[in-house]
């Protein structure tokens, strides 16, 4: 399958990336090559095989729901690019 510039743009939009025309062209070709390579998986018979999502089989890890100290507001906000009082400030969402 051939990756078009429109495909690349669509994926970039899903990934919240804005690519330059040069990047679009580069990625279209490289993704073609990589996706061509991974096509080989189609040749593996996986009928009845259960997918693995984790290396160590485990069920949900439950713990008691108890209140514990956390890092606190000031530390949590220390890296904020912009803040308003005790909130992270962002550009307007609604006009």
């Amino acid at each position, binding site marked *: 399958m051939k990756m078009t510039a429109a495909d690349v743009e669509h994926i970039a939009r899903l990934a919240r990336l804005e690519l330059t025309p040069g990047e679009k062209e580069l990625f279209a070709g490289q993704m073609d090559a*990589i996706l061509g390579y991974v096509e080989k998986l189609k040749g593996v018979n996986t009928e009845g095989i259960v997918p693995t999502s984790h290396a160590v089989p485990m069920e949900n890890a439950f713990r008691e729901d108890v209140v514990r100290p956390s890092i606190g507001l000031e530390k949590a906000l*220390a890296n904020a690019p912009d803040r308003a009082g005790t909130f992270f400030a962002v550009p307007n969402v609604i006009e």
Partner: protein
Amino acid sequence: MNIFDMTIHKLHAALKGKQISSVEATSAMLARIESVEPLVGSFITVTPEQALEAARAADRRIARGECHLLTGIPLAIKDIFLTEGVRTTCGSRILDNFIPPYSATSWEKLRLHGAVLLGKLNQDEFAMGSSNESSAYGITRNPWDTTCIPGGSSGGSAAAVAASEAVATLGTDTGGSIRQPASHCGCVGLKPTYGRVSRYGVIAYASSLDQVGPLTRDVADCAIMLEALAGYDPKDSTSVDTAVPDYSAPLTRGVKGLKIGLPKEYFIDGLDPDVQRAMEGAIETYRRLGAEFVDISLPHTDYAVATYYLIATAEASSNLARYDGVRFGHRAEADGLLGMYTKSRSEGFGTEVKRRIMLGTYALSSGYYDAYYVKAQKVRTLIMNDFITAFASVDVMLTPVAPTPAFKIGEKINDPLQMYLSDIFTIPVNLAGTCAMSLPAGFSASGLPIGLQLIGKPFGEETILRAGYAFEQATEWHTRKASI
């Protein structure tokens, strides 16, 4: 012997015997860093003041008679580990100004033993790469030949050990990122079993594959580091609650009768002749030591790289969604929230990271999810089953770490697929979730180190450490130093 060339166990003996102080050792390391950094580029951030302060505290502990194996030992860690109060970039511009509010459990454990942090090491951006060329903070050079890559993504961690800029270091391994640079730089590197070491506070790349491990000058040091790092952490629910054995005491038990498997898919035509020769030499050494060899097969090996690059990129695209300019990291000026997300990410991420986010987003997108992502997860099951079957008849496996010695800087940077294929022998271990170690096993004709990989059963670190130690005692490869 130079202080900066010492192992953990040698320096520990000197600290405990009061022949040397941690301040002296730390000062020697800092001077060494200053003199070789311009040639190597192992570090993103060096922290001399904090290091000396920690060294003074360690000396006070030692004076009180509290001298753990790591007390006062100057270490450095990959810049993927959160360090409270010390800038942590993960090799990315998007985290250029990020000062973590807490520390990774793995570093915290070493710090509580009194280890001294010299600084944060260079790496491929977000641990995505096999050459350290994708770092936003400049390349790292191989101390054995500065025209070659050190390997990646823990390239700084391996180069720092090889160039004697730290006694030992921490790295992370998602598809070979500890073992491949260890092999290329001639040091020992261990990827523990998934769940053996906490991932809390380690910046996530591919969460079902990422694992923390040490890079050291010898196997004894590797055992010391693993013992300090291993164990269940309530802050990482994927860490496994199984007892941590004494990794050091059994090292000397030898390999007589040990069954070593040689997976035929790893000894392919076209393997670099220097690597081939090193493997033959290693097999001969183990035979002499009384180990038995068994021919085995891991039939789905050929599918591992394709499987990995679907699963790892899918997980990465999800994990890296958090870099949106809202709470930390780079924020671009833009109109509206969506524009701010998009512009911050596009300015902050480098090319390799964008490429992998794109691949992963594609593999998870509507209409392709089953064909790519779920298919890869099913093939992962078959790869894991290969290991389970083979380990029924052997104790460990012996393979090369990488198909060639370190390649030239720039050689593969424009061909991502060729770069990905350099991890062909290390990736299956991450998919299977088991443990493996790289240790020095020879040199190429041009003087570049070649590593040997020992793969163990899940939670079988004790056995590969013992096998590695026996090899090290019988050879002198690990004693050679880069002449930088």
